[in-house]
């Protein structure tokens, strides 16, 4: 017998329900209004009053409305067919909804019940299995999608049977396993999991160390992120968070990309809908949409569902990680999620923390970032979730609770800066304030030395030192004037400008410049550092600027040309001549 209740009070989307039986924190319920039912989640219980947040508008809802409790928490459905789909924050398939406008109380099933999947068994009778063990494999958009023992199972089981290779639907029986008491359990291809709990079917979560190539120079070269790493992109509005995230999602060397549009603009999601089916994954040549899942809970969609959306996305990511895949998860913007928490916490009249955010904001954020990572699965395979979230600091001020809490949780910090964006120095990542903690990992250093070259780390460090020096000189020039500093200083400053223009800046809208594979990054960094190591002898600072502007221009033309094409090599030649002919090259 499930618990029932009646609506007692309504404050916006917070509804107070008097219940007639047991209810659990985070349990899902449905509230009847008119001829629809509104989904809601229990967020507080006092006596026989359950406080529920409704995932929809409560317009017209009346006191006395019937409520039915479901006996489970907010769950997602996992199984083949998640890829290429567009879901809302509660995993409703948006394409299955009728009409141009979203209807309140319309819930759609996230998978395709009729589609036939090519299945190959992986386990055989007699195998001992546990939650997360691979039983079979289907081909989902050319990804080996593993059918696993449901994560909710505990203890050990013995495989009794697995169906033969062939075509099956998601609800067909594909295996029977026997529990320790000898009871047989039939399994199909789907399972459910409560989104707010982490899926932990792995043996170990070692420190991640393998570069996750993103094709963005200011990340890969300057502050790399790794497979299973975490990073965040804070920045005032309009500084390029979304553009940078989209660029990463298009180019990153990942098997699965999950994008959670969390309280942001619908048109930005439409951009993905339009572009991703057309664009190809630079690593496999397949259409981007084939590896992508979109969770769209845009800013005009219900606030409570926005809070759920990031968890929905993370749970799906964990599901694919358990198959031994490299998953990249992006959330834009985690600040909107924090704001959703704030709205609800205020309505609950909880004691507010800084800026009226809930007191435990830091813990909630840390817990979420903690779900990412690189893992060793029970069968020895590895999988990863790399998570990159954007943060939208109020007033562009990084000293606010969401940024500060995230900084404690994420290992890479890509700080977008208003001044750079104003000067159209895109991506506006501040090269000096930003960091990647992974560079300090000896495992990473060892890996990158093999992957790129033994002197790579030194080269990158030299580059950063020069950038720092350039910045200092610029400040001095601002105080002392152009002729108040030695000409040498101008040379150093302009060398740092070469790095900025050629390595750090990258046009996300240029077909060629937007993607820069690691080999090309290596070539360009070596080239630029060669320039920077060259000694120049100028008699006045005006000549310095003219000379370097010309050089930057040539390098930029190289960035716009196909790598090692005739045009590219032509500019390279021009550059080399310039280095030899002009002032003094030693």
């Amino acid at each position, binding site marked *: 017998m499930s618990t029932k209740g009646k609506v*007692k*009070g*309504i*404050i*916006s989307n917070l509804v*107070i329900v008097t219940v007639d039986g047991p209810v659990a924190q985070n349990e899902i319920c449905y509230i009847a209004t008119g001829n629809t039912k509104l989904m809601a989640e229990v967020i507080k219980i006092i006596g026989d009053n359950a406080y529920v947040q409704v995932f929809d*508008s*409560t*317009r*017209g*809802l*009346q*006191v006395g409305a019937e409520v039915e409790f479901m006996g489970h928490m907010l769950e997602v459905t996992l199984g083949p067919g998640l890829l290429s789909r*567009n879901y809302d924050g509660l995993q409703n398939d*948006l394409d299955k*909804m009728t*009409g*141009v*406008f*979203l*209807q309140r109380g319309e819930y759609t099933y996230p998978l395709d019940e009729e589609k036939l999947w090519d299945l190959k068994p992986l386990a055989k009778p007699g195998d001992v299995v546990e939650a997360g063990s691979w039983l079979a494999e289907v081909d989902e958009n050319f990804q080996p999608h593993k059918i696993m023992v449901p994560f909710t199972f505990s203890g050990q089981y013995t495989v009794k049977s697995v169906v033969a290779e062939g075509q099956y639907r998601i609800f067909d029986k594909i295996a029977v396993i026997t529990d320790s008491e000898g009871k047989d359990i039939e399994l199909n291809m789907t399972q459910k999991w409560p989104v707010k709990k982490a899926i932990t079917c792995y043996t170990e979560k070692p420190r991640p160390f393998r570069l996750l190539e993103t094709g963005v120079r200011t990340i890969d070269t300057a502050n790399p992120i790794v497979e299973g790493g975490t990073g965040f992109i804070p920045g005032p*509005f*309009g500084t390029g968070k979304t553009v940078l995230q989209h660029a990463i999602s298009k180019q990153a060397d990942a098997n699965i990309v999950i994008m959670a549009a969390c*309280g942001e*603009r*619908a*048109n930005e999601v439409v*951009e993905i*809908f339009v572009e991703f089916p057309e664009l190809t994954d630079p690593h496999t040549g397949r259409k981007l949409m084939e590896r992508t899942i979109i969770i769209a809970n*845009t*800013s*005009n*969609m219900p*606030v409570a569902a926005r809070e759920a959306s990031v968890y929905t996305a993370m749970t799906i990511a964990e599901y694919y990680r358990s198959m031994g895949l490299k998953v990249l998860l992006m959330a834009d913007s985690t600040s909107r999620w924090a*704001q959703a928490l*704030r*709205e609800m916490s*205020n309505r609950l009249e909880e004691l507010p923390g800084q*800026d*009226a955010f809930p007191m435990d904001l830091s813990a909630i954020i840390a817990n979420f970032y903690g779900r990412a990572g690189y893992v060793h699965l029970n069968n020895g395979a590895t999988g990863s979730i790399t998570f990159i979230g954007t943060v939208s600091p*109020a*007033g*562009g001020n990084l000293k606010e609770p969401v940024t500060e809490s995230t900084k404690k949780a994420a290992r890479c910090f890509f700080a977008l800066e208003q001044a750079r964006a*104003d*000067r*159209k120095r895109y991506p506006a990542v501040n090269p000096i304030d930003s960091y990647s903690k992974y560079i300090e990992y000896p495992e990473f250093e060892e890996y990158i030395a093999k992957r790129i070259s033994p002197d790579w780390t030194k080269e990158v460090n030299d580059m950063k030192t020069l950038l720092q020096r350039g910045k200092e000189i610029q400040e001095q020039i*601002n*105080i002392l*004037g*152009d*002729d108040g500093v030695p000409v040498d200083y101008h040379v150093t400053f302009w060398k740092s400008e070469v790095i900025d223009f050629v390595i750090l800046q990258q046009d996300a*809208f240029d077909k060629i410049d937007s993607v820069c594979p690691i080999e090309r990054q290596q070539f360009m960094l070596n080239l630029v550092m060669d320039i920077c190591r060259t000694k120049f002898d100028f008699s006045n*600072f*005006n000549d310095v*600027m003219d000379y370097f502007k*010309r050089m*930057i*221009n040539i390098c930029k*033309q190289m960035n*716009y040309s196909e790598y090692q094409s005739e045009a590219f090599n032509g500019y390279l030649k021009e550059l080399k001549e310039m280095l030899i002919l002009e002032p003094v090259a030693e």
Partner: protein
Amino acid sequence: MATKAFQKIYTKVTQITKATCSLKASGVGNEELATVNGKLAQVVKIMGEDVTLQVFEGTEGIPTNAEVIFLGKAPTLKVSEQLAGRFFNAFGDPIDGGPEIEGEEREIGGPSVNPVRRRQPSELIATGIAGIDLNNTLVSGQKIPFFADPDQPYNQVMANVALRAKADKIILGGMGLTNDDYLYFKNVFNNAGVLDRIVSFVNTTENPPVERLLIPDLALTAAEYFAVDHNEKVLVLLTDMTLYADALSIVSNRMDQIPSKDSMPGSLYSDLAKIYEKAVQFPAGGSITIIAVTTLSGGDITHAIPDNTGYITEGQLFLRRDSDVGKVIVDPFRSLSRLKQLVIGKKTREDHPQVMNAAVRLYADAANAKTKLENGFDLTNYDERTLSFAKDYSEKILAIDVNIGTEEMLNVTWGLLSNYFKPEEVNIKQELVDRYWAK
């Protein structure tokens, strides 16, 4: 709004604050409308039998025995073609002396468009103002505010944009408009002979502030009617959204909510997003474009209202006075149109993106040179050139009184570039330089 005979009448108000009153009632729906001694009110909280109403006009003079009648519905607007050419107040009642509208009654503040049903905006809106068309190109289906201090001529610029935009309908949502500005809009539209394409919902400074809260939803319900039912291109003008947000804070502070930054309600982002996200390109061809005004205080865009707005809208147009040329310009640094990528170089000439960026970069160099000058340093020859360039650029491109076609904007800019710079100083793709560099 007429009441029906069978409705139950309550006459015992238990609590009255400046904006709300409470009473015991049953069978009431959340967000339902009511009248309190004839004043329109809306249900904002229900706790058992206790119902709290937000009274739009304010509660001045409401007695404890006021007559409260529940209307059994959320706020609505009657929609039909008759809306065209008409002026209404914040309750959707005519203020132009004309007859009531006959038509289908629709709830305002309705559901949002399913993101997968949206189409990508792709139609350029030409305004003739180069600070907009060249640097911050507008696209139909976009939402974008003017950020301006109260002394900037934002309403005039907005009216110009509206008239040149070739929209099928223009819907004006005026919030806290001064009577003079209201008459200004009326006049401009009248003189342009476009009154029959205009629908106006107006709350002036003379009306109670809380009434403003209904204006955006009314305007957008009318917009959805024309854009969905008639597949029209609708332009919605919302001025001034800062005053709208102020009204939000009045209400929420009186409801004992914990204010967040700048005394604004914690839900400000969601409240504003619900309005702005109504901008859309529909699959059947209709569209809603929102151009709004967010007034600033002393140019401060970090205040919660412009800040949240900036995070929601697809860019912003920042107006400021350029004292070097004595004109109001569209500031190329703080302004941005995020949808411009969808049209520039595609619907406009191929060189548009690069020329635009090059000019803005040089304008930024000029700003540096100016700082140097102010700090008393010698300028280099390059600095001097950027300064001369900036002055010309400001006058011929950025000033809001510019009215030319997009090609001409590009040609003028190439002209300025070649007047003051060498090709290698502008960082433009060689093939474009070869084609367009003014010799």
